[in-house]
């Protein structure tokens, strides 16, 4: 529908409309919005007092305070601004394997879902693609839910390619981000754990609120459908390994993947980040709507 992924049915979009992004801290926005901003403004939430100055709006004079102190004070309110939302989509080559799992398609759907939630809330969204082949969305904020179609068309034109070192890629992109905000990172995180930790750690330093979504394929989890003597080649590094895979080895492989996934999750939780694991065999809309809290969203 309008170039959106198949998962974006009208009912799913309606459910997404009910969600909003939840951050653990307040971030200044770039315009009016629904999120409290550390700036003082005209929201209903009281922030502070200051002495009256000539030219101040009489409507904000606290007359009760004047009666008690015989001095004029102006009530200050917090500003409500939009939230700067950054969605990082891993489009490295590993996202294309196993092809049957359609990991990258699911990752795009996840990124678009986050973008739609943000756009529907009036927030600004910037989607940044790590590696990949093709013309991705421009590195600028978009506003308005109608821009989801444009984003979807841009993202679906991408092909997973190239190698991603999360720490290096995120550090490079972080330099271009002038303001802090909410960060969604969608990746399979199939890389060396120290690279993942250094990359995610950069956002902590930049006081960003991070949600990491790990997308893994069902076949990928169960041994990629391999058996017997196989030479496996890493899609990104080209490194090859000769292995014999039988039931015992398949189970050992599965356990290793699970262990790697838990390490990422454990790191995220320790650093106050949100973490969610999505396996492509699961229903996407069910996952997204049930794991709202883990995804850093709220109804």
């Amino acid at each position, binding site marked *: 529908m309008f170039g959106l992924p198949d998962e974006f049915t009208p009912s799913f979009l309606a459910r997404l409309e009910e969600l909003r992004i939840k951050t653990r801290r307040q971030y200044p926005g770039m315009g009016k919005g629904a999120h409290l901003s550390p700036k003082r403004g005209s929201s209903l939430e009281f922030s502070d007092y200051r002495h009256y100055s000539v030219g101040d709006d009489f409507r904000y004079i606290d007359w009760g305070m004047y009666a008690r102190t015989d001095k004029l004070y102006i009530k200050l309110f917090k500003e409500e601004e939009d939230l700067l939302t950054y969605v990082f989509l891993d489009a490295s080559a*590993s*996202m*294309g*394997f*196993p092809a049957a799992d359609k*990991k990258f398609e699911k990752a795009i759907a996840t990124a678009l879902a986050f973008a739609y939630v943000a756009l529907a809330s009036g927030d600004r969204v910037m989607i940044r693609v790590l590696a990949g082949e093709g013309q991705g969305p421009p590195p600028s904020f978009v506003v308005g839910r109608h821009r989801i179609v444009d984003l979807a068309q841009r993202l679906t034109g991408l092909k997973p390619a190239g190698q991603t070192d999360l720490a290096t890629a995120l550090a490079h992109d972080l330099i271009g981000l002038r303001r802090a905000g909410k960060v969604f990172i969608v990746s*399979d995180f*199939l*890389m*060396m754990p120290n690279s993942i930790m250094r990359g995610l750690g950069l956002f902590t330093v930049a006081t960003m609120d991070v949600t990491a979504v790990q997308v893994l*394929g069902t076949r*990928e989890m169960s041994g*990629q459908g*391999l058996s*017997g*003597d*196989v*030479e*496996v*080649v*890493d*899609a*990104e*590094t080209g*490194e*090859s*390994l*000769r*292995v*014999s*895979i039988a039931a015992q*080895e398949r189970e*050992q*492989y599965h356990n*290793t*993947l699970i262990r*790697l996934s838990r390490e990422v999750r454990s790191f995220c939780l320790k650093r106050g980040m949100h973490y969610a694991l999505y396996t492509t065999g699961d229903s996407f809309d069910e996952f997204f709507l049930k794991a709202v809290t883990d995804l850093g969203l709220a109804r």
Partner: protein
Amino acid sequence: MGLLNPGALIFFAIVPALVIAYLARERPARVTVSSVLAFRALRGFRKERFGGMPKFDWSFFVELLILSLAVLAMAKPYLIRRGNPIAIVLDNSAAMQAATREGASRFDKAKNETAAMLSNEDASTVALYLTAPQPHQIGGAPLTPIQARFQIAQTSVSDAPPDPAAIAGLLGELASGSSVSKVIFASSRPLAPPAPPRIDAITVGDPVENFAIGSFTLRRETFGAEALHARLTVANFSPKTQSLQVAVSGDDKPLAVAKATLGPNETGLVEFPSLGPAIIYKAELSPRDGFSLDNIAYATAGSVKSVSILFVSPRPGDANGLDSIPGVRVSAKSPDAFTPADLNNIDLAIFEFAAPKELPTVNSMMVMPPAGDPVFGFEATPSAQIQIARWIPTDPLSDSVNFRLLNIGQGELFASHPWMESAVDGAGGSLMLHGERQGHRFLATGFNPFPYLGKRNLPMSILTLNALGYLAGVGANSGGYRTGQPWLVPAGVHDVILPSGKTIPAKSGTLFTEVSAQGIYKLVGPGNLETPRAVNLADLTTSNFESVPPLKIESSSAAPDLESRSEKSPLTGYILAAILALLALEAMLLYRRKQSPLEA
């Protein structure tokens, strides 16, 4: 170098197949995966493990080499090299027991000199032969010189006399054949010139004086008498007159002593007319000499003391007269009921008007046998009035019989027989035939003596008793059993105990060949009853060390073909050893690789 089975080289065709198989295995399915991170924890290729197919690397070439070697081994390669096969013929006959001047026996001296000669030969293989009781090869296939020396050291001398004709035949065959380049013959017997050039003779022992017992026989003067008459032949093989003394003991108790004075190279007779009863008799000659084997002789009383007779006849009443003879037990049976098994535990059998269907396993007498029996094949002519025409006066069968008073009446006259001789002739044929077959004595009469036995017609009774005595071994002229001469195992005997005490299983009716030792053999029959049997050297030719006739060898003097002396040295064993070593090496290296950590 050559190949015994070059056809096996066709299996080299499987080598390319192996290469293809390896190449196919060497390119496993390459699968691009999202990350090899989780695969690093897995083990490597199964084929990289021990027991699996190795990689197409050094192990492939090792296995290729192993396969090639296996195919080569199937082709049975060999190296042709010129060999020096020799044969050793070692005389181990009884004469080699004689002592030499140095004190050692001739046989020990022959062994030492043979081993010394073998050490000087650059022999590749050695075929080792012994001469007694018959020339035979020992050690199976040709031996290495070391094995041959070991075998020579293990051999022992026999009590059996040599068979000069067989030895000469063996030497002639070896000397004229192309299988050996040299023959070493070690013996006390010299070779008659001209000896074949390829025979190196080692002659041990000079002519020495020797006093010997030849035969030792026992006879019972009359059938059923207790005393035995012993007769020994003694010889003086020395250049001077010698007084010899013979002492006879029975069951280890001294019985009698007799002396005889014999001139140089003279043979005499020593008799003991009345020896007391005993089971085993032993005669010892003195003075002793360097060859003790022929200074002792053994004899047994055998079964003459008590005789068990099976009387097979349609008229069993004719056996009544036999019962009156002391020490004789008679059992009668009709011809229809007779089976060969009935002869077990029987000393002799009498077939009256009947004939057995197979050669009896005991001494047997056929009385007026029916015509056309397939075993003996007698041809008899009935005669209404038999006239005695001729008899052998010195034969035990005719001893003390007054043939002029012998009135036989009607009977049968036998035609000449293939292997039985006539003892008494009638006018127109033989009246009594006797002979030996398969170690047993057989006698046939053309008249029936039993109705007259002990009643009237005294000459007939004496003739009958002589016949029974002949069959029972009484008055036998036979020198008994001799070393080196096989004998038939009597019926019912299942074991034979050698003089050494060793027990040999035996089968009735078969030849017993373990007869190399002089002494008393015990034949174990039903109920483990032991019957002694004396076996003696009883060969004065062997005992005569004064004049040993040389051995004449006849062989072609043609030089052996050099090619025929070349030997094919098989290489298969070395190749198999190399295969095993390579397999062990590969297993060890693969094991070490498995132990090392997998690539990170």
